């Protein structure tokens, strides 16, 4: 589904260069549920931005759903974001002056679907997250958990192949966070690839695969073996300590 090879992302501020991703390589199969952990400033958000085509990169190659998306025009990137990628953010990122219906409608508007199809998709997606009775509510009239469910409905309505979730439970209490995780698991079980950045070891463990980013590089726990099973690999130890 997603393949990155030696991707390097540099931020320049005046004369200062910051390498947010360094020779970053990763492959995620279709249908996987991958969680990413790492300390602040390790490159997690940069990775999500690059993989979500929200930001470019200086070196390396990136394939998404089998297509090289390393160097695309804004229009092509926008189309891929609209059709193949769904975003879930920590702060929900709903548009405050649009009600639930219109918020879920946003990505569908840019896809050019008919009014009838949009309405069907919106109602189905909002029902899936259990908010059918709140269609005309503004985000400010909903709880945090409900807002995140609207954000998930917005993703579901677009029916993407891959969901990028940036700490989706970060602003929620534990009960609501579990609900959101349950929802994400259901979506993943239906075949959608999910890559989720999280600080929570509990939530990270619910994924098929856990990855760790440190200093702009990927550390894949599953590829740390072979290492004596009765010992903890130093990288893994560092990662777990940082994550907790």
């Amino acid at each position, binding site marked *: 589904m997603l393949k990155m090879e030696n991707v390097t992302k540099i931020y320049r501020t005046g004369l200062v260069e910051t390498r947010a991703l360094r020779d970053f390589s990763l492959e995620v199969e279709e249908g996987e549920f991958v969680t990413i952990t790492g300390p602040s400033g390790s490159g997690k958000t940069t990775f999500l931005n690059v993989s979500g085509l*929200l930001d470019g990169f200086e070196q390396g190659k990136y394939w998404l759903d089998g297509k090289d998306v390393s160097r695309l025009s804004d229009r092509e990137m926008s189309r891929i974001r609209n059709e193949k990628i769904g975003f879930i*953010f920590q702060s929900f*990122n709903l548009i405050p002056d649009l009600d639930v219906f219109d918020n879920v409608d946003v990505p569908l508007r840019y896809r050019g679907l008919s009014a009838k199809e949009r309405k069907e998709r919106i109602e189905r997606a909002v029902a899936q997250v259990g908010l059918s009775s709140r269609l005309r509510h503004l985000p400010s009239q909903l709880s945090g958990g409900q807002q995140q469910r609207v954000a998930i409905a917005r993703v579901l309505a677009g029916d993407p192949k891959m969901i990028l979730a940036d700490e989706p439970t970060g602003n929620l209490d534990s009960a609501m966070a579990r609900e959101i995780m349950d929802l994400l698991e259901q979506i993943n079980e239906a075949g959608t690839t999910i890559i989720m950045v999280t600080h929570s070891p509990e939530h990270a463990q619910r994924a098929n695969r856990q990855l760790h980013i440190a200093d702009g590089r990927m550390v894949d726990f599953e590829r740390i073996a072979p290492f004596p099973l009765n010992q903890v690999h130093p990288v893994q130890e560092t990662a777990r300590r940082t994550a907790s």
Partner: protein
Amino acid sequence: MLLYNLRLAARSIRRHPVLTGLIVAGIALGVAVSTTFLTVYNTLARDPIPGKSDRLHYVRLDSWDPRDAYSEDGAPPQQVTYQDLRRIMRSDIPTRQAAMFKSRMYIYPEKAGDRPFRELVRLTFSDFFPMFDVPFRYGSGWSRSADEKPEAVVVISSELNDRLFGGENSVGRKIRIEEGEFRVVGVLDQWRPRVLFYDMTQNPNQEPENVFMPFNFIEPMEIQTAGNLMGWRQEEGDGFLERLHASEMAFAQMWVQLDDAAQVKAYHSFLDAYAMDQKKSGRFQRPLNNRVTPVLELMEEWEVVPRQSRSLALISLLFLVVAALNLVGLFLGKFLARASTVGVRRALGASRRAIFLQHLVECELVGVLGGLAGLLLSLGSIAAVNRFYQPGAADEAFFQLDARMVGAAIVLSLIAAAIAGIYPAWRICAIPPARHLKNQ
């Protein structure tokens, strides 16, 4: 997508009423100033007799002083002499023709006790009315035979008809003008050409005269012009008639209707032949310089539309541009304040172009609101210009906001909004979406 963008724009306008109000006021002010001055210019420069102006030609003959040209630009005198107009009117080339001048005469009302009053009277020929498409409320112009004798007939304006006859159909009624009694044959309908195109030798913005009578009363009534007299030599002869017939004083306007290029060419040749013939008797000693000029060309040549009004119209457009440029900052502030929601839209699939269009539509909607407010303001400013231009005038306003100007105001407001909004819309769509999302 346009409707969607319009809905978003309307929502944004409702959400920021004060900021939007400021922008609307800025555009409204610029549009009002531009629309007012464009209306003034448009009114003065408009074709005064559309559909016919290219066929109506003003005649000028260069009978001026052999030693000194009439004007530095080489143009012949603006008017023709009596002796010349009598001769050239014998031509049968024009479809219609009418010489004319204005005078001021006393009118004596029928009603006992009403005091006599002076009115401007235009002496002209019967072709004047059909040639200039003059509208009649009652009756019509006089006949060609009435030109010859001449018959004591007049055409009066509806205003004078109101004053003398209480607005009734006065055809057949009598009016005493100076020492003569004249029969009314026609009453004009409302007739207010934007430019007094048939006599632009003085103030071209005057209203038409209230009385029209056959030209040939000039001799029996010894009528003097109330317009310009253009002479270059000491006049000779005893008495009015002798001097009139021999005079080189140009005081009459001469119009001919020539329907095609061949007719124009033939008439021009006729004038040149006439001038050549006059040279034999010692007149027309200057090089041939006769002109047959269509209405709009004459207006241009004589600068009937003051240069100042054109300059003011241009300056007012610049004012609008400056007003629009001043609004760039307001739009920019408004748009950048919502950068985070733009980031969300970009993440959800909006292209740069879609974001640009969304914001441009908002600018244009604000622009249209500004244009409508500007139109309301310009109604007031045009009324003020009318009061200044025609103090005390009770009739129809001279400068009016017509459909064309309403359209122009809307187009100007769209242009102003585009000037004010393009840069902010471009800025907001050019910022990478990831940066917007960080701000959420």
